[in-house]
């Protein structure tokens, strides 16, 4: 008993700070959402989208690949809320499964960009000199490529498919993050408190981890959110060209490609996937802009 008690008191002592931190952070988060309707709407939409994608196997009324040749290109009805496609597959179900692919694609591309871009940017900003000069020219060169052209070319080489396509898109995005991170690193490195830390004998690793990363990462967070929208649009476009998600798997871009083939028979089929892409891109953009305002109060909302 005494042991348990002691343990309990010990636990209580060590955990006291965290319960007080979490609710206040949560409260600050909720206060932000209440003050920023745009961010609240965007987050709600994205949350619903993630749930729809994750729970698609449970929630979707039909399998995304089950064909029904007796009911092709059907109008919206009680059985098929958004109608069916040219193979009689339920559009709503395909839309929900497509959400998973879209989010996976956007996350993968931006993840690749972060993993390459952030360390490279910090490194060249930190060491400077000829290494910085050379890598900066490589960054300029990659940025000179039209993004979809580079993505198509890399996908063509690696082999066609969603994962390869998004690796390619992510590679194309990495220079944007590297450039931002480099500029931020230069600013932080030149500031007085970093000089002070160097004076106290701080190691390079300590400088990067404790001073440069936390201070330089803010604009990257904004950029990452905005890049999610670009990556989503890229996935839709590449899947429209059949370079991304492969049939019979569902993707919004692929659905639009099929809908376009039957546009004269069933024009209604072209709306739902397009709106899904538009709304998701809008949500990422809105969230990015709101985070920008939140992190940098000097930015006016104009």
């Amino acid at each position, binding site marked *: 008993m005494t042991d348990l008690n002691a343990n309990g008191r010990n636990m209580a002592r060590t955990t006291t700070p965290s319960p007080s931190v979490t609710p206040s952070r949560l409260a600050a988060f909720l206060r932000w959402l209440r003050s920023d309707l745009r961010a609240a709407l965007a987050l709600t939409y994205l949350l619903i989208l993630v749930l729809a994608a994750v729970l698609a196997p449970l929630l979707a009324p039909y399998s995304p690949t089950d064909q029904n040749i007796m009911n092709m290109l059907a109008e919206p009805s009680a059985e098929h809320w958004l109608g069916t496609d040219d193979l009689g597959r339920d559009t709503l179900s395909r839309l929900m499964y497509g959400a998973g692919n879209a989010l996976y694609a956007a996350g993968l591309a931006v993840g690749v960009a972060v993993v390459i871009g952030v360390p490279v940017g910090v490194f060249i900003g930190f060491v400077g000199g000829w290494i910085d000069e050379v890598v900066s020219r490589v960054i300029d060169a990659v940025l*000179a490529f*039209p993004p979809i052209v580079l993505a198509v070319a890399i996908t063509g080489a690696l082999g066609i498919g969603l994962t390869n396509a998004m690796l390619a898109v992510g590679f194309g995005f990495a220079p944007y993050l590297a450039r931002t991170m480099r500029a931020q690193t230069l600013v932080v490195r030149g500031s007085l408190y970093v000089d002070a830390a160097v004076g106290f004998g701080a190691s390079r690793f300590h400088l990067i981890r404790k001073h440069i990363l936390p201070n330089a990462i803010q604009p990257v967070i904004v950029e990452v959110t905005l890049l999610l*929208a670009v990556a989503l649009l890229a996935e839709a476009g590449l899947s429209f060209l059949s370079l991304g998600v492969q049939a019979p798997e569902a993707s919004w871009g692929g659905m639009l490609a099929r809908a376009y083939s039957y*546009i004269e028979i069933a024009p209604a089929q*072209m709306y739902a996937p397009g709106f899904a892409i*538009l709304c998701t891109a*809008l949500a990422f953009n809105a969230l990015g802009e709101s985070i920008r305002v939140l992190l940098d109060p000097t930015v006016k909302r104009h």
Partner: protein
Amino acid sequence: MHGVGRMVLRRLAQLIPVMIIATFVVFALVFLMPGDPAVTLAGEFASEARIEEIRALYGFDQPFLVQYANWLWNALHMDLGRSLFSNEEVSTLILSRLPHTVLLVVYALILGAVTGVPLGILAATRQGTRLDKAITSFASLGVAVPNFWLGIILVSTFALDWRLLPATGAVSIFEDPLQAIYYATLPAFALSTNVTAVLTRQVRSALLEVLGSQFIRTLRAKGLRPHAVLWSHGLRNIAATILTVAGLQFNLLFSSAVIVESVYAVPGVGSLISYSALNKDFPVVQGVALVLVVLVIGINLLVDVLNSILDPRVAAST
């Protein structure tokens, strides 16, 4: 003019390494291919002789840098190899298709400029009003809308329902310029929304900054009429912004053209690269990527030069 000349030289010195690295990226794409690139390039049922032929064509048996030097040398002489599919010269193929893409991109840029610049000016001069908010929201829509979806909707509405414009296809600008523009109108419009949106935003914020600056306040205090302030002082100072933003848009327009050309069955380089990537016609893919990246770098240089002629401060600062 002296400053401009020096600026061009300095920019060229910066651009040459960028150009070399960009060409290297295009060349190195071959090495991303899984397995032996010669086997992959030859296709599924290729004979041993065909594989050897491709190996010799690309020079895969030679050291890496020698391969690159050879490839670059040939590329400089307009020799980009032959299509693995049709056996056509890649350079001829690209040259015959490039005008379609350039027409679309320039047309879209003009459409974007004639809508985006006035919208930006209107929003800035009516800052905070409902009109400003409407224009800003419209710009947010413009960057988020998938161009190819807009393209599909335009086909459905303007071509199939109203029969106003042709749904798909293209006419060469050299054969019949008027018909070419007529055919390019819908795809160019589908491409232009991004330009409109970005120009609206940038012109608006640049103009707000200029109009809020000290010298404009002085001009107003001296009694200059608001119209005169806007037209002869405000706009002159945002000309460089417009030019720079427009120059940067080329890159993204070529990017969107890859997908929009497929929607409208335009035989440009955009549909060429996606079709070739699907069919593993790799020399063509490389050729298109190379030509477009060189074009983009060239356009950026041109924009810098124009900017420094327009605004001598730019030339002095670089």
